């Protein structure tokens, strides 16, 4: 259920502004890859190019190649809708559908993808909520609104919603930045569990988090404000945090960054 992503020479634009430039990397299946870097370095933008969410913003476009195993995601015959079905996403702020119940939130993606029988749906909703470590907390109130949960529970609900459609890859854009430490821990445990089945990419501002959850880490930086962000280096997380190859990486992770 997990696939490798290969990126080659990727540039992304907002209108005429080039946000990221010349990014090439390989993201391994069944592992957690973390993107770190200062604000505005384009790591979230890059993440959104991986499931074609970048182009949702008016005027945004991408140049370069992203391959999921043997498929070119930006190929002319590829439907962006099917890309997003294959590569799921969890956002910075928990965003369950406010008018839907907990059950309907998890089932939302499945209902989009076509007819599923009620009993099948019940099973997938339960599996997904269990997969997101939320089942025990909500199993008695599945018909209650999803927006009534706590922030951490909402974020796990969003993860359950994302994995319910059985994606190949799960992209997470700072999934814990709006959560308290206990909820953060719950999400981090979940990430470690999910990587057995999925390819996970996580953007984080929290370097301890990157060190705790990820197998490989990519450090992004930008030369100056207004310049495009670039990939500085990518390596095993233990190597990035103990013995990085680049001076800029070392400066950033040790906090000696301007």
């Amino acid at each position, binding site marked *: 259920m997990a696939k490798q992503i290969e990126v080659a020479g990727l540039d992304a634009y907002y209108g005429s502004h080039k946000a990221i430039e010349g990014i090439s990397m390989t993201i391994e299946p069944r592992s957690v890859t973390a993107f770190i870097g200062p604000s505005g370095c384009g790591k979230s933008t890059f993440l959104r190019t991986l499931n074609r969410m970048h182009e949702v913003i008016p005027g945004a476009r991408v140049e370069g190649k992203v391959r999921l195993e043997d498929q070119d995601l930006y190929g002319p015959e590829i439907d962006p809708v099917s890309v997003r*079905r294959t590569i799921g996403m969890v*956002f910075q*702020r928990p965003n369950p*559908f406010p008018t839907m119940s907990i059950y309907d939130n998890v089932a*939302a*993606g499945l209902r*989009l*993808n076509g007819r599923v029988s009620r009993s099948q749906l019940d099973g997938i909703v339960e599996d997904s909520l269990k997969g997101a470590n939320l089942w025990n907390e909500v199993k008695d109130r599945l018909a209650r*609104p999803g927006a009534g949960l706590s922030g951490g529970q909402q974020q796990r609900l969003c993860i359950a919603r994302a994995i319910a*459609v059985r994606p190949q890859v799960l992209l997470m854009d700072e999934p814990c930045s709006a959560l308290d430490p206990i909820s953060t821990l719950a999400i981090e445990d979940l990430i470690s569990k999910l990587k057995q089945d999925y390819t996970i990419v996580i953007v984080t501002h929290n370097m301890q988090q990157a060190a705790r959850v990820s197998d490989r880490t990519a450090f992004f930086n930008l030369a100056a404000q207004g310049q495009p962000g670039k990939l500085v280096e990518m390596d095993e997380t233990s190597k990035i945090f103990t013995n990085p190859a680049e001076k800029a990486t070392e400066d950033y992770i040790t906090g000696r960054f301007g």
Partner: protein
Amino acid sequence: MATPTRTTESGPALRRSAFRRSRGDGPFRFASTGAGVVLLAIMAAIGLFLVVKAVPALQANTSHFLTELTWQPNATKPVFGIGALAFGTVLSSLLALLIATPVAVGVALFISHYAPRRLASALGYVVDLLAAVPSVVYGLWGVTFLVPFMLGPSTFLNDYFGWIPLFSGESIVGKSMLTASLVLAIMILPIIAAISREVFLQAPKMQEEAALALGATRWEMIRTAVLPFGRPGVISAAMLGLGRAMGETIAVALIFPATFKISFQILGPYGNSIAANIANGFGEATEVGRGALIASGLVLFLITLLVNMAARFIIARRKEYARAAA
């Protein structure tokens, strides 16, 4: 992960509450309370005036006001009732709403989520402009163009869909319930579209992206993230439109055949509404006739009130979700 905020050790000295209130708070409170009271007083005075005027006419009535269909308050033995008028008002407004709302929602969605940005702003401007056109203009257009034009489509409907009770009947005319409803629909369409567009534009980007990231097409995204969010707003817009349609006077007074008959045959020469009847009849009304018309106005007010309450009820039914979303 919020950092604890530091409090200053010596803040500004606390002031006595009387001192604070004297600085503009009192006059403002007086002015706003006064405005509220005056509004209520005016409303009560109008209501009282209408009731006082209506009661003698109702007492002179020789038939039952709520069920009688004919309207002859100016006769020596006044006979009048609200039945046919209320029926015509409600039916024409509901038909107008049924025709206008889907189109208006479509227009609003096109402007908010489909059209390219420049086309969207131009269209939005046109819709706002249409909402400001006086209703008499729609009425005149209805009489001079739509009434003769509708004869063809109405005959077609009667010929091929006459088995549907709404389209049945022997005599087919241009000045029909359907034509009046169409004019009303065109009249209330811009206001419903304008409000719906504003609501749809406020649909949270977060939810739209959540739907797209699940692999939703644009229409599926609108169905999961935009329409549920906009539902209360669209209902409010539709109710505003319904209120406008029910209160509309001149446009329909020009078109309605002014008969006093309850009939669902919307292509036939039947139909009238409370507001149109007031406009047509007030000039030559006697003392009792005026009272009767005022009484009918009170009924219109009651109907509008009921519609608004129903709308609030519909919106409040999903309050649990609405509150959670806020």
